């Protein structure tokens, strides 16, 4: 093992493909461990799945019954993110609301699963719930309070990127990887097109990390390997008006339109779930938009009539073999793949997961990268408080871009 101090002399270089939440958190993690890092993103950072989610900082309660592994990851990261990114959340908690008899019957199972996952809960009777949130469906039975929160889907990752830049990482938005450079069966770099100049540049790397979320399979194919990934889009609807302070979830096994996330002066209702092969071609099915309103209104009646601000789709990167039907049965957890297992060295893929677990995804990936490089450098991202998001563009402009070798 090489001690962290000696890294400063000639640290290895890690190229991260993908400037989403995972890529930002990984750049931050590796920069703190003393490595040289370059993030390449084909568009603006957070322009893929990262920027498009509800804005929910999960307590994990949504997964407690059906996907306990994700639930445990979420509650642990929920606590860490509040500590390292203060001021980045609407910290109003969340409610799981029982609307029907079936929901009420599901209550004990839900509470037991939350307890098993370490998620704190407080059961509130109808009158107490309506005192807190008078705009909820007045026919609700009871609700369970959990430590959900609202996050800004772009500005939290910008804090990871800003801190990474301050620690020496290089971030190159509008730089699209078009080839992997290989020596035999080892990935030794990438060829990318800089869209601001049209130049092709070759960038060498000791390890290339594929952090492209639902695009991970496409990038992995450039190295001739496969990742068991299923892009699963969902429709989200933003309505004008804020009807609650707390995040409102339906207390049931997960389903369409069962969450209303207040954010700024909007209410975001989500979501549906289906499967696609191409994460660049999602569409926004109009029947899904209608379903968000109908189902969302069972929780917050004003959702039925509030003016529409936007309807959009986002592709979740779900890990799982093809053959799933809607994506709901696939876990929301993440996986890191060392493609040495398929005979390709110098190449790692991280995918799956959620915005709430972006830091944990980075930690697991950085641990693997360091193991592969024979480095002994512990993770420090659980404690390091992040720079404010406003720092990002100034540091980006100041950062020196190492001259890439012209490839063509």
């Amino acid at each position: 093992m090489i001690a962290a101090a000696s890294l400063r002399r000639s640290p290895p270089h890690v190229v991260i493909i993908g400037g989403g939440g995972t890529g930002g958190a990984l750049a931050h993690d590796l920069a703190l461990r003393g490595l040289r890092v370059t993030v390449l993103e084909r568009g603006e950072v957070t322009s893929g799945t990262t920027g498009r989610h509800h804005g929910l900082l999960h307590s994990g309660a949504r997964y407690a019954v059906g996907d306990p592994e994700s639930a445990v990851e979420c509650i642990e990261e929920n606590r860490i993110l509040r500590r390292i990114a203060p001021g980045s959340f609407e910290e109003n908690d969340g409610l799981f609301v029982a609307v029907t008899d079936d929901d009420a019957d599901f209550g004990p199972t839900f509470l037991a699963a939350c307890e098993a996952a370490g998620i704190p809960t407080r059961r509130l009777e109808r009158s107490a719930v309506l005192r807190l949130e008078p705009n909820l469906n007045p026919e609700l039975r009871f609700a369970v309070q959990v430590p959900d929160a609202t996050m800004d889907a772009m500005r939290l990752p910008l804090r990871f990127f800003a801190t990474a830049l301050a620690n020496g990482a290089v971030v190159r938005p509008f730089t699209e990887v078009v080839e992997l450079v290989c020596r035999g069966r080892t990935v030794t770099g990438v060829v990318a097109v800089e869209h601001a100049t049209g130049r092709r540049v070759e960038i060498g790397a000791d390890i290339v990390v594929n952090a492209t979320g639902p695009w991970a399979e496409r990038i992995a194919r450039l190295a001739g390997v496969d990742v068991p990934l299923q892009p699963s889009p969902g429709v989200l609807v933003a309505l004008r008006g804020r009807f609650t302070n707390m995040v409102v979830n339906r207390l049931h096994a997960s389903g369409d339109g069962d969450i209303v996330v207040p954010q700024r002066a909007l209410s975001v209702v989500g979501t549906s779930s289906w499967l696609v092969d191409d994460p660049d071609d999602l569409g926004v099915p109009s029947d899904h938009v209608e379903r968000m309103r109908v189902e969302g209104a069972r929780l917050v009646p004003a959702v039925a009539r509030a003016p529409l601000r936007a309807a959009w789709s986002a592709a979740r990167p779900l890990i799982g073999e093809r053959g799933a039907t809607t994506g709901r049965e696939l876990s929301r957890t993440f996986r890191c793949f060392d493609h040495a297992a398929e005979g390709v060295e110098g190449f790692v893929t991280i995918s799956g997961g959620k915005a709430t677990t972006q830091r944990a995804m980075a930690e697991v990936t950085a641990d693997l990268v360091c193991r592969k490089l024979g480095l002994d450098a512990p993770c420090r991202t659980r404690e390091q408080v992040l720079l404010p998001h406003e720092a990002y563009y100034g540091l980006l402009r100041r950062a020196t871009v190492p001259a890439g070798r012209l490839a063509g």
Partner: protein
Amino acid sequence: MSGLDGGARASSRAPSASSVEQQSAPARLRVYRHKPGAAAAPRFEIYEVPASAGATVLDALLWIRRHRDPGLMVRHSCLHASCGTCGMRIAGREALACVTSLAELGPGEVTVEPLANLPLVGDLVVDMEPSYARLRAIGRPLVRESELRPEGRPAEGIPGPTRFEDCIECGLCLSACPIVATDPRYLGPAGLAAAWRSVEEPRGGAVGRVLALADDEQGVWRCHTAWECTEACPSNVDPAGSIMRLRRAIVLAPRPKQ
């Protein structure tokens, strides 16, 4: 291995309908193209985009990037007017492309240009740093007290309901402001709106320092009250009204002795 071609393995499971009310005619977009790092001069390119490509100007631009030119540079993130990255000038007005409906722009060619008064990075992308530099100078927190105050207390364990500030830092007001266009030293509408929020709800910050920043010839006194910022704001922040309220606060504030 098919590389970057995603492969049109059109899935029978995927829903076929689009949220766009089916317009029959394709949209015609006239898009500003210029790479400051390349030799070619600025120009406009015309693209025909099928109506099925989507409902918004951003949908159309992403269709162009996917099917006509992967080098088209455009910023976007949340797709619901909350991140503020897709600000541009559409048919001559500042707007967020993600919530600008093509159908509402009507028939005919739609000109799409980058925001004004910010340095061009390429095509429709500008450098947001001059805007963020002003926001950093003000130092307004991102999270504010929620104006939703249902009777009773917030939930147990919650000190007081909070929410994000309305300003989404999109830069539309800077692009629309005729003073920013002539003088980059002006603190500008987004910065002054943030200053007003820091005065209105200090959250532990130093109100006197913020008022002193605003009380400057490049602060509130530079505004010529064109109200273009308030007109352009997609998030109801009302920067011009904030500037007027700041002027009043400055005039009424106790003066330190000289």
